[in-house]
């Protein structure tokens, strides 16, 4: 098993964090993981993306050039990355912010209104966790418990109060694609 996941959006949407949580969760399940960000003169509102490779054997290339799954959080990401998804792959897109329909017919496509769901939960900033919940429900790469553990580890004691809302977001995301 080797899954190559690309996560892209605006800087500030938490796409790098989504990838890190997924990696940490995979690590907790003794899978091989590798997280690779785009880097450069980045800024809030600019483009951000990361690739995550999760496998049960040592990982070769750390680059995700032909993703099995693409998680696209904004319109520029859809334009840029929809064409490179592996045939037979999966696309999840944030339909709250993306008004276009993906054109590919050789892939599985799921629309997740991340921001709308997050706002309903009372915190627009957990849109990324909604998407992560949707992704993991579909991909089944790691358990919800591992994701939550990774989240607890990442937030630390100082931000422990944010666990419940993030947990709700993960669950709501999973439910949206059920």
């Amino acid at each position, binding site marked *: 098993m080797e899954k190559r996941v690309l996560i892209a959006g605006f800087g500030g949407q938490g796409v790098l964090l989504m990838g890190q949580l997924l990696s940490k969760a995979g690590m907790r399940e003794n899978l091989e*993981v*590798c997280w690779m960000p785009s*880097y*450069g003169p980045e800024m809030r509102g600019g483009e951000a993306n990361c690739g995550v490779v999760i496998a049960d054997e040592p990982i070769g*290339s750390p*680059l995700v050039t032909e993703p099995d799954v693409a998680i696209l959080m904004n319109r520029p990401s859809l334009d840029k990355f929809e064409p490179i998804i592996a045939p037979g792959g999966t696309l999840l897109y944030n339909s709250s912010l993306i008004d276009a329909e993906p054109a590919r017919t050789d892939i599985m496509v799921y629309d997740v209104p991340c921001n709308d769901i997050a706002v309903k939960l009372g915190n627009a900033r957990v849109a990324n966790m909604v998407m992560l919940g949707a992704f993991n429900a579909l991909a089944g790469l790691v358990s919800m418990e591992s994701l939550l553990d990774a989240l607890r580890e990442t937030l630390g004691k100082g931000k422990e109060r944010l666990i419940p809302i993030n947990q709700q977001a993960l669950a709501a995301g999973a439910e949206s694609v059920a």
Partner: protein
Amino acid sequence: MAKLLMKGNEAIAESAIRSGCRFFFGYPITPQNQIPEYMSKRMPQIGGTFLQAESEVSAINMVYGASGSGARVMTSSSGPGISLKQEGISYLAGAQLPCVIVNIMRGGPGLGSIQPSQGDYFQSTRGGGHGDYRVPVLAPSSVSEAVSLTQRAFDLADQYRTPVILLGDGMIGQMMEPVDLPDQPDQPAAPSAPSKPWAATGWDGSRPRSIINSLYIDPSALERHNTMLQDKFAEIAKNEVAYSSEHTDDADLIIIAYGTVARIARSAIRAARASGIKVGMIRPITLWPFPSEPIARAARTAKAFLTVEMSAGQMVDDARLAVGGLKPVYFYGRTGGMVPAVRDVLARIKEAV
């Protein structure tokens, strides 16, 4: 200890600290900035010294000073900054001072780009500065190997009284992978540094004066010094070659690749093997000394070699010297911060067999 998910740059910095490094001098440049950033936070916590110098030239000379007084010391930079450090590296080699220099390579020449590259292979493996010298060059291909090679770099530096270069690229610096860090965190003194009787630690009359110097005005004295250095380099070349072989026994084609590119090559090899093509890999872990002998041995059975690099063709020279014209050595490379894709490497494999 539980595994941690760490960025290559941060893992190198933490590993240096756990190897007893208590002095870090540097100047910012992408894509290695997390090394000084991490050091600036950690060094004060453990009684070490972090100093952002006014330039790379200044930083490498601070390394000279700290090393001359017997400390375990490190600096880090990327291509343009490493070029500025070359005068100091030559002095360090001449004065036989141990230190670790991390180069997280980016596209060049000139200011180039900030994306990954392996264009500093010649500079690293041929000494880089003026005069007759070489320094050991270690090339990690994963974050966990970056941790172990950082430790190894400090040990080699002390053992042979030489600067050692840890040569990575923007990918290894920026990516996160699980790491097992060596124990002995936060010890105040250098835990594994051997004693250094040659260090200038203040003369009390009880031993000969320690003089840190690379100037020998008398040519015959300098020649003797050079002969001694060359003997040392020969010793390093004899004892310290490190490489890994994968699927070479039955291979018709052997890929030679190092660092992150070896990872990409490994993916291509898996795909090639799945379609019945017998490909293997020799991955140099030390670039100098280069694993010439295992490559020469493999040349007896393999039909051809292919070096894959993020350069216009640098390591391929060493591969050809090792193969000695016995078999063809092909080359595939990308430059400027562009990274070879698995499918392109696979296409080259198919062309070569």
